[in-house]
């Protein structure tokens, strides 16, 4: 391993494991799963058994600890299956569990985390509502304390793994207006008053289920409160750092696959008597694409290294997400263009990459919200 590398022996072995997992368990089926708009629950169990879901979690909860680059290797290799939906669906635990791990009671942690890391249970994060997305502090789902229970009323939407999760980390309003009145509750699937109201049809991310949830006089035991009442907002914001890094990685992974597909296609496809790579304009376009991706990858790695070092990267991780998604917007667009009509066909990977990519600058905080954060950090 080079001295300049962020990766060591452990990362190499882990990369081998994940890439083998993708090759054996995912690639033979992914096209079918995409069309079926779902992947088998069994895949969580297989990933859990191979120790892939526990990367970065405490050993006491069934995880294997580890540094940020181990998680990064996992995300990069899972993305090589060519399905953002699979990465998002299999990875929904990584946005749902951290608040429980960091702020939950011991009893709650033990009840939820180990089973999810084993792949026996699925976890989802439910913040977004029909009337509050970017404006997280504006959520309206109410939780009113009545004795040993919270009575929850409201709705959530666009929730990844929302249809089949067992545990939901749900943002609710327990106090006054604004961010100071937000709490997090862990709500279980079979709680009376909780229903999955709709499975949503989407542009991309087909392999992951995305749901609308409804809470009508849903009675949640008070011991399911994650952390302290009315202090949920900070937990949500902390959680966003990792999600944004992971979305930047997904963007880079998307770009990588798009570029690789193009490099192959331009050598095979002929026009006007020569392969597309015979046109200088094509070669220069590929050179630009490769340059942008390289810059994005290095920047993202750098931000990951800072995070690993315990530095606050609120600004940088927002920049990395925007940079990476700008690059993936461009590269997926160019990839479809280079493929011509074939790029528009479902049998081409670039067609799926183009659709899957679109969410990356929206989810986990939109491009505009990232810029709000960055400009605040610049002193405005």
């Amino acid at each position, binding site marked *: 391993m080079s001295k300049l590398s962020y990766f060591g*022996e*452990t990362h190499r*072995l*882990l990369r*081998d494991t994940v890439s083998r997992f993708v*090759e054996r368990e995912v690639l033979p089926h992914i096209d079918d799963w995409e069309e079926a708009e779902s992947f088998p629950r069994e895949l969580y169990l297989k990933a859990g058994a*191979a*120790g892939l879901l526990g990367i970065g979690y405490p050993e006491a909860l069934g995880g294997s600890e*580890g540094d940020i680059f181990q998680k990064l290797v996992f995300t990069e290799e899972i993305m090589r299956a060519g399905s953002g939906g699979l990465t998002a669906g299999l990875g929904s635990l990584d946005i749902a569990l951290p608040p429980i791990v960091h702020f939950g009671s011991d009893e709650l942690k033990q009840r939820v985390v180990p089973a999810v890391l084993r792949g026996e249970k699925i976890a989802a994060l439910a913040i977004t509502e029909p009337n509050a997305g970017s404006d997280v502090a504006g959520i309206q789902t109410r939780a009113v304390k009545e004795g040993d229970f919270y009575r929850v009323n409201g709705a959530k939407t666009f929730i990844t793994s929302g249809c089949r999760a067992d545990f939901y980390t749900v943002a609710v309003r327990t106090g006054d207006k604004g961010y100071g009145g937000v709490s997090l509750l862990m709500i279980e699937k079979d709680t009376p008053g909780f229903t999955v109201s709709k499975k949503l049809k989407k542009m991309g991310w087909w392999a992951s289920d995305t749901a609308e949830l409804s809470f009508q006089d849903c009675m949640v035991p008070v011991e399911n409160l994650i952390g302290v009442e009315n202090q949920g907002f900070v937990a949500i914001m902390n959680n966003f750092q990792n999600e944004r890094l992971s979305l930047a990685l997904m963007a880079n992974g998307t770009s990588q696959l798009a570029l690789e597909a193009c490099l192959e296609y331009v050598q095979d496809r002929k026009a006007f008597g020569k392969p597309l790579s015979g046109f200088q304009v094509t070669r220069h376009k590929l050179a630009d694409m490769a340059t942008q991706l390289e810059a994005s990858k290095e920047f993202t790695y750098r931000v990951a290294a800072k995070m690993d070092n315990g530095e606050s990267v609120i600004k940088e991780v927002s920049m990395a997400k925007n940079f990476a998604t700008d690059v993936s917007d461009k590269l997926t667009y160019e990839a479809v263009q280079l493929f011509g009509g074939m790029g528009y066909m479902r049998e081409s990977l670039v067609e799926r990459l183009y659709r899957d990519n679109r969410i990356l600058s929206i989810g986990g905080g939109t491009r505009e919200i990232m810029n709000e954060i960055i400009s605040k950090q610049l002193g405005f």
Partner: protein
Amino acid sequence: MKILVAVKRVIDYNVKARVKADNSDVDLTNVKMAINPFCEIAVEEAVRLKEKGVASEIVAVSIGPKACQEQIRTALALGADRGIQIETEASPNSLSVAKLLKAVVDEEKPDLVLLGKQSIDSDNNQTGQMLAALAGYPQGTFASEVNVEDGSAKVTREIDGGLQTVELKLPAIVTTDLRLNEPRYASLPNIMKAKRKPLAVKTPAELGVEISSTLTTVKVEPPAERQGGIKVGSVEELVEKLKNEAKVI
């Protein structure tokens, strides 16, 4: 019971191998390398025997440049207990490899030696057999099932036309076929543990073996490109073409 497993570093089976421009060899620059799949099956079998309580120690050995320590680490992450690298920059032929392994067998005195039936790079399928001859041990090759009990190994072999079961008195040599098992994934906790397992480095000289070459590679060429296929209209036409054009029936 001690098991010695041989592992070889080869080009990853997913990589489309390219031949060097001068036809001297396969081009390995910047190519992903991996543990030979048959060797991986051998490691898995050893680990299963240990999990069953049959084996107590697994030693993984690889012959090659420093980089082959990567494959030893993989074996350690899969469950082997310690590793031995025999360092050489030469690419020894099967007989030299068998002689080196024989020297390790003399030192380690394993009850069972597990090897892949062949490596996917040179496809020779002879190292295990040569080692058995040099060590004077019985051999069970192309194993699709291995049962070890009371000082002997029952090995089911995949042979043309069926299965054959042989019983070998230990110590013995077994080479693995594809269907013996499906290797596990090295999990992160096991990868971390592997980092702390011992890995000894030896040289052929220390083992008293001289690597000699009796073989020169004259030329390496890629296989002929596959021709496009055709669609036939009926079974009759298919049979006719198989008979008269392809001349295979």
